[in-house]
């Protein structure tokens, strides 16, 4: 129903190469998230898939059909935008129905599909309102409804939650996850927020500087990062990346250890450090240490009391240490 294949996509704006050869396969019904820092090309890739930008070279296949020269409306896609992008002069109903009307669907069918979508998103009471009369969360629901009504093979989300406040973001995230289960549709979702990526995705695609760094399930990326970039990007607080030479270790350039995989003790341990700052989050306590080899972040579960400027000894879990070579690739333990 909605598989997607991307073959060697490149995109340049003048001299600047934004996408430098992307290959990717998305299976029917998968929830795939593109994640990466700003400027990594994730939104451009989404626009190329949507047909809003032409790729400089490469092929896009939706459902096995090449769509390089197909206009966006004929690709069987629907897109939800960061800024909602509702038509300000149309009612919610007309916003949702415009695409179908353009496609020449009979009025009865349009009405029925709007009815299904609006009850799914509990928008029934707002159908006759204008977007200006809705709250941010409601507007985003209308935008999602507009996508659902089209019954697309492929849903594209371009940072849909970044304009919402924190509480609403969690709710809408849950709603999107529910929709994915309900519709069983293929969804591609762009975000820079790794929490959204980890919680929603079947498969995460980490992009950096126009290339794919790694593709995998959230837990694969967390447990087996292939590169220093992925190791540093996935997980919060960030993984500690330590210059191996400062630790006196050979055979690797960088050593990585996640803050949650370090034990601390007041009396003895592998690394000695001074406490610079402590953050109490209730469920977690995050300790920032200054050691001989630089700063070190430690995350402990539960509540702990430590004095700033006190001395602590940190010991990493031996099995959780990652080693990276000169090309920033992970070294597999032989």
């Amino acid at each position, binding site marked *: 129903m909605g598989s997607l294949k991307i073959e060697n996509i490149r995109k340049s704006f003048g001299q600047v190469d934004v996408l430098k050869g992307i290959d990717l396969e998305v299976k029917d019904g998968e929830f795939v998230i593109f994640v990466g820092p700003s400027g990594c090309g994730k939104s451009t890739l989404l626009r190329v898939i949507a047909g809003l930008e032409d790729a400089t070279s490469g092929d896009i296949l939706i459902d096995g059909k090449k769509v390089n020269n197909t206009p966006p*409306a004929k690709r069987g896609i629907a897109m939800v935008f960061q*800024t909602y992008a509702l038509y300000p002069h149309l009612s919610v109903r007309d916003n949702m129905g415009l695409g179908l009307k353009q496609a020449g669907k009979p009025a009865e069918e349009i009405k029925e599909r709007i009815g299904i979508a609006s009850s799914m998103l509990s928008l029934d009471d707002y159908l006759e309102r204008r977007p200006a009369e809705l709250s941010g969360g409601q507007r985003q629901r209308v935008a999602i409804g507009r996508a659902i009504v089209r019954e697309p093979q492929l849903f594209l989300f371009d940072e849909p939650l970044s304009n919402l406040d924190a509480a609403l973001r969690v709710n809408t995230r849950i709603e999107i996850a529910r929709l994915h289960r309900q519709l069983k549709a293929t969804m591609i979702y762009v975000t820079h927020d790794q929490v959204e990526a980890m919680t929603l995705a079947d498969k995460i695609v980490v992009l950096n500087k126009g290339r794919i760094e790694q593709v995998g399930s959230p837990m694969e990326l967390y447990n087996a990062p292939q590169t220093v970039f992925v190791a540093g990007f996935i997980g919060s607080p960030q993984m500690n990346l330590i210059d191996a030479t400062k630790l006196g270790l050979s055979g690797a350039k960088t050593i990585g250890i996640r803050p949650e995989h370090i034990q601390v003790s007041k009396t003895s341990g592998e690394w000695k450090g001074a406490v610079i700052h402590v953050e109490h989050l209730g469920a977690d306590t995050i300790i920032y240490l200054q050691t001989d080899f630089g700063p070190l972040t430690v995350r402990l579960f539960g509540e702990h009391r430590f004095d700033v400027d006190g001395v602590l000894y940190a010991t990493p879990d031996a099995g959780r240490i990652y080693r990276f070579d000169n090309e920033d690739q992970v070294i597999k333990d032989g």
Partner: protein
Amino acid sequence: MAKPTASPVRTGIVHLALIIYTLIALFPVFLTVINSFKDRASIFRDPLGLPTPSTFSLIGYQTVLGQGDFVLYFQNSFIVTGVSIFFVLLFGAMAAFALSEYRFRGNTLMGLYLALGIMIPIRLGTVAILQGMVAAGLVNTLTALILVYTAQGLPLAVFILTEFMQTVSDDLKNAGRIDGLSEYSIFFRLVLPLVRPAMATVAVFTMIPIWNDLWFPLILAPSDATKTVTLGSQVFIGQFVTNWNAVLAALTLAIVPVLVLYLIFSRQLIRGITSGAVK
């Protein structure tokens, strides 16, 4: 809700300055209007006096309307101004959309070229324009005036509308594309309604110089059938004798339509600003 810093004295001074400015700006208009209702002798004897029962006279209006041609002159002015505004807005908005929306080689250069007309007054080209109109057989037609005024209004329209159209969200246009709207529908149905305040501004800026222009009607269309109001009222100004009653009455009449149009456009302008368009 009053701002905490606004003391009554400060507000008073600001209002006083604005009132004085308004009085100065309205004074010539006021003078024109009151004198148009007086007889000839009292215009000269007491130019600042309001019309009294003894000095009140409609002789000016009778002369103007009695001439018969004035209805035609008004009609000419309306046609020329209205059609010119329409073309300026249509072509200006289309050019602005192309410049702001599409990436193509020479985009910036094209924008500068289209804005060049703001810096170079069109009257410098009068001789060439006249030669062109003669060659095209358009002298003494309203078409000639409409063509010239459209050209005259376009540069500023393109300039202002380009800036405004850049503020229309890309996501909105892209949403339209995904919903299957053609580029023309996106332009007419999504972008134009959102830049309506800018269109009203451009319409006002375009309208007033066209309505008031004496130069091009005098050169390109001085025939009786194509005279505009401004040119028409010149018949009362002679080298030796000027029929002031008629001149003032004609000018007063000429203010009315432009005032009405201005009110219409400025209401659009305010409505556009306050309609709370979604970004």
